[in-house]
């Protein structure tokens, strides 16, 4: 039904949010009745193959992860822009095709640039 907005349709979504977030809490709370709690310093160390941990766990990491995150934002926004276009595509005809392919072509320039600059290379 395009054009109709019924908030009641979204009621199950809200209830599901509540159920899904409460499930973990409830199970963990119920679990406190059954489970043991015997902590000692060695048990609370981070796992490192049975040895005492060496150095700081939070080290500097590769800048590539940041680049991937930035590229993700660009391309995911592109994908989100494509969704409304895809939904009304059947009604718009050839005009929509040309419009959107121009949009994709412009993004492809950025894609090719990122590729040439080696953003997708991992060594």
């Amino acid at each position, binding site marked *: 039904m395009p054009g109709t907005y019924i908030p009641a349709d979204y009621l199950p979504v809200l209830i599901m949010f509540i159920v899904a977030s409460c499930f*973990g809490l409830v199970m*963990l709370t119920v679990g406190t009745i059954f489970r043991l709690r015997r902590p000692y310093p060695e048990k609370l160390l981070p796992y490192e193959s049975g040895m005492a941990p060496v150095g700081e*766990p939070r080290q500097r990491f590769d800048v590539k992860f940041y680049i991937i*995150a930035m590229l993700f934002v660009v391309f995911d926004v592109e994908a989100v822009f494509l969704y409304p276009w895809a939904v009304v595509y059947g009604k718009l005809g050839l005009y929509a095709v040309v419009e*959107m392919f121009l949009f994709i072509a412009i993004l492809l320039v950025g894609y090719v640039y990122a590729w040439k600059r080696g953003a997708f290379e991992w060594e």
Partner: protein
Amino acid sequence: MGAIDTLLLIVGVVIKLVVVFAVAMLHVAYATYFERKVIAHMQIRLGPMEVGWHGLLQPIADGVKLLFKEDVIPAKADRYVFMIAPMICFFAATSSLVVFPFFEGFNLGPYHVGGALANINIGLLFVLAMSSLGAYGVVMAGWASNSKYAFLGGLRSSAQVISYEISLGLSLVGVMMLAGSLNLTDIVHAQERAGMWNFIPQFLGFSIFCIAALAETNRTPFDLPEAESELVAGYFTEYTGFRFALFFLAEYMGMLIMAALGTVCFLGGWNPIPGLEKIIPGGVWWFLVKVYTLFFMYYWVRTTLPRYRYDQLMSLGWKVMIPIALANIFLTGLWKVYFA
């Protein structure tokens, strides 16, 4: 609408929701059993045999055991972030269940029982949004654990998930174009009208979707976040007891969601295989058969293929999948203008 009607509406929704949630949890529990059995038999072993007839009670025993295990929170961990990360993962995976149409819907007296819990117009968008949320849980778990393995696992996993999310999202654009809707029920109806399931006209899209779904759910051959030979268990290395179980449930729930999404978008949802509608009419059983088939494919792939290397994974995602997914949109556009 009167107060009584509103109350009835809410009660009805809650009952349906609890049923769907319980059935889904049962499926998730038995997906682990199914996986162990399938892999065992492919490797000429028997798999779980001890607990119950042919090990049928094994998932329940596992669940009870995890409930009784001590909940260890490492001393150096970022306590609150550490505690909520598994809940975010589980929440993100489970919430998507609400929009899937499992059957056509029928009339029970004056009431209409819909096939989906929430028949909303943004169904597909909702699923994609929720599957993106899971990455937060992973990053938070990796960061808060304050352990080298968890940290590396969390980083790798989030980079992998966001990389493949683009191709996953783009592979579904073709489906949206054919159906002209984001409503999952409409997408199934569109396939009914076309007389052809989407995996035929959207063959490229379906291939991309399957590969991206494997990567999104961290399954072999893309299980690098938990590559046990190098990262112990990846981002949930430090988790024990029921918090670990929540990650595990979230992972299998994610598989269920991806299998259901594939069923709805590409395999005709609840519709029977053409030619068989006289013998077995369409309904929730067909939906389940298709979901189980996709689950079997997950396990089959797992026993067959070795793990990817991380640079291979990234170059596959960025250099191969995205161009093909874009080409698929282009071809679908042309096809729709000239032939439909």
